[in-house]
């Protein structure tokens, strides 16, 4: 059988051995937790606490700022120190609620709203919205919006994105090994939301890259009596976990940049997101924690940590023993899609997947040269466009040619920049042009 995959893609050094065998460790935050009001796509949340208020762990401290938005919950008990703009990972200053941790971790008590059987579709989506769940793979799109497509009856597949194709990251892997029942339970809840995603054959798909055979075996074992759920092994290749690539690999359906997964009857959610759904619906717990992989050759003890959202990266790094050698570059997230960080004193958010300390910065070490037209970017581009030409158009600000040649189809996966022998910043050029075009469209 041909392996489930897509055309294009790359095989970067995956570095997962550094942390894949390290069980998830709980770590406690320091004195101060910072909750940026905008840690998701959409309208920023609105603070509903004031300076000096005492808050409990799990208490809602900011409410949704609109339909496409998500509330934010305190992850420790303590006092609201201030509400002021704070620096976040991307370098922006974002209005944030700062909570002084009293170290008691007193919570408000978590009770499920009702048993699963009693909950209707609207109730479940309501719980997910109130729990502040957003796409935790990195994008941060509010999950309740994703679960409320225009025509819910058209949804046929609910896909759990367990590919974890990004190099170095092992948080999803540990999650699947350690809490598979929560993933399966969460997926069942999501499948139950869509009437046409039930029936004779499997409509709940757990898609795992085949470099995690232990996960695949375990999940298959656990779902062998679940006809509604199938575990699919995907070829290990970056960006296998990209939404468009994942949908194509598992269902054979294709979407372009102008379409949503719902247009081809699919809903895709990340492992951590699905576990968060399970905990919100079954245990009544809002989104307070996530798993962060701290890794890279500069980190003393790479590992996977369950962190309280709002902790600073500095504290997370210390849990992993700090740096053993001076890192050249620190990345929040994976090496392909993550942000380069210039300071570690920024808060972790709902979308913090990893902290990566690299002793070598490939980007600085390699000087870009002229394009030799080798076509490697064309071979690897999952969007099937010509990245070298698009980058040229972007560089010369030829908007017409950029759009005519499907420049907007770039998913910014970075494959072209990775593979380019001339080390040209292809993704970066295309990305900046896309940003301009997207901003224009909004007007």
């Amino acid at each position: 059988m041909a392996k489930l995959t897509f055309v294009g893609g790359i095989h970067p050094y995956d570095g997962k051995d550094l942390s894949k065998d390290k069980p998830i460790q709980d770590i406690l935050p320091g004195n101060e937790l910072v909750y940026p009001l905008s840690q998701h796509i959409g309208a920023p949340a609105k603070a509903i606490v004031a300076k000096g208020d005492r808050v409990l762990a799990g208490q809602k401290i900011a409410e949704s700022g609109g339909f496409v938005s998500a509330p934010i919950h305190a992850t420790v008990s303590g006092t609201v120190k201030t509400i002021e703009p704070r620096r976040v990972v991307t370098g922006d200053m974002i209005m944030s609620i700062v909570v002084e941790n009293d170290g008691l971790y007193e919570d408000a008590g978590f009770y499920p709203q009702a048993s699963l059987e009693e909950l209707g579709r609207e109730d479940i989506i309501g719980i997910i919205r109130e729990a502040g769940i957003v796409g935790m793979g990195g994008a941060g799109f509010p999950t309740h919006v994703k679960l409320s497509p225009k025509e819910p009856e058209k949804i046929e597949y609910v896909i759990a994105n367990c590919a974890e194709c990004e190099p170095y990251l092992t948080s999803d892997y540990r999650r699947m090994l350690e809490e598979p029942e929560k993933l399966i339970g969460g997926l069942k809840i999501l499948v139950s939301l869509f009437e046409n995603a039930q029936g004779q054959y499997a409509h709940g798909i757990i898609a795992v890259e085949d470099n995690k055979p232990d996960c695949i075996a375990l999940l298959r074992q656990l779902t062998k009596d679940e006809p509604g759920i199938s575990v699919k092994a995907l070829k290990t290749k970056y960006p296998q976990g990209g939404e468009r690539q994942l949908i194509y690999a598992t269902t054979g359906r294709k979407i372009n940049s102008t379409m949503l997964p719902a247009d081809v009857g699919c809903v895709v959610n990340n492992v951590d997101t699905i576990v968060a759904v399970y905990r919100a619906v079954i245990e009544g717990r809002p989104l307070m924690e996530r798993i962060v992989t701290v890794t890279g050759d500069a980190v003393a003890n790479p590992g996977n940590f369950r962190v309280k959202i709002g902790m600073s990266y500095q504290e997370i790094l210390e849990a992993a023993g700090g740096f053993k050698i001076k890192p050249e570059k620190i990345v929040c997230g994976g090496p392909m899609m993550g942000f380069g960080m210039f300071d570690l004193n920024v808060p972790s958010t709902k979308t913090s997947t990893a902290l990566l300390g690299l002793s070598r910065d490939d980007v600085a070490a390699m000087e870009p040269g002229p394009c030799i037209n080798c076509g490697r970017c064309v071979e690897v581009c999952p969007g099937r466009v010509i990245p070298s030409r698009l980058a040229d158009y972007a560089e010369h600000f030829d908007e017409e040619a950029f759009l005519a040649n499907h420049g907007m189809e770039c998913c910014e996966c970075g494959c072209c920049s990775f593979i380019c022998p001339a080390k040209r910043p292809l993704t970066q050029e295309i990305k900046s042009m896309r940003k301009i075009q997207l901003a224009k469209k909004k007007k």
Partner: protein
Amino acid sequence: MSGLFKVSSNPHVRSRVTTNGIMLAVIIALMPAAGFGIYNFGPRAVAVILVTIASTVLTEFLFGLYKKKMTITDLSAVVTGLLLALNLPVTIPLWMAALGGVFAILVVKMLFGGLGQNFMNPALAARCFLLISFPTAMAGKAFECDAYTGATPLEILKNGGQVNVMDMVIGRTSGTIGETSVIALVIGACILILLGIIDLRIPGSYIVTFVVFLVVVDLAKGQWISPAYLTAQLAGGGLMLGAFFMATDYVTRPITIKGQYLFGIFLGIMTGVFRVFGSGAEGVSYAIILGNLLVPLIEKVTKPKAFGYEKGGRRSEK
């Protein structure tokens, strides 16, 4: 830890493949052919190769001094020089070889913007320039080296003579320095394919089309092609050198995948036309140069459909 770190936009990792590495691989892959050329034609071949490479590198160096931008370290000038030398007869006066090198680098490459900007393969363009300017010195009949003098196998074929196919495969015939040995060229091509520098799209479609063309021409004459003639056509002249090392030149072949097949097919037909109907025995160089000129057009008609825009976008469901 309050020190600042390096930041840049993602991705933060790069593959180990570099332009230099690719050029070096091509140079290594050309070594068997160059080595056999030296063995076949004697020490003068060494002189031709060294003079041509020196001329290309020096030209790029001087141009770099003038433009205050040194580019010789990318090794592309060495590749051009070596390829040009392998495309020259061993008897060529050394000053002509040097002139060819200057033409390749200065006129075809640097004046158009340097590496990546030339629209013709510099080595082939220089070969054609020399062919037109000095037809006698470039023609096979000028061979006067010890081992193999006289006409090239293709010329013998053209004039209705018989050739020893085995000698042609090994390369013990006359011709340009690097084109005679099919075995040496195929070893080099295998190196490039295994290293992932080239693929079989262009050489494959080129050679297959050429074979089909010859078969069809013979069928039109009402006869079935003789295997000896076909093998001689495949092994003779610059076909192998051209198909694996010149037509696959990144800069001057289409970047689109479909376009590469189309390019190969075009080269196959043109080579056939030149060889069968042309006045000369050779056709590879002119076919590739013509193909190079058609690249923008080929790319235009083979522009790929972006993911999710293809007709019938759904793969059959299993």
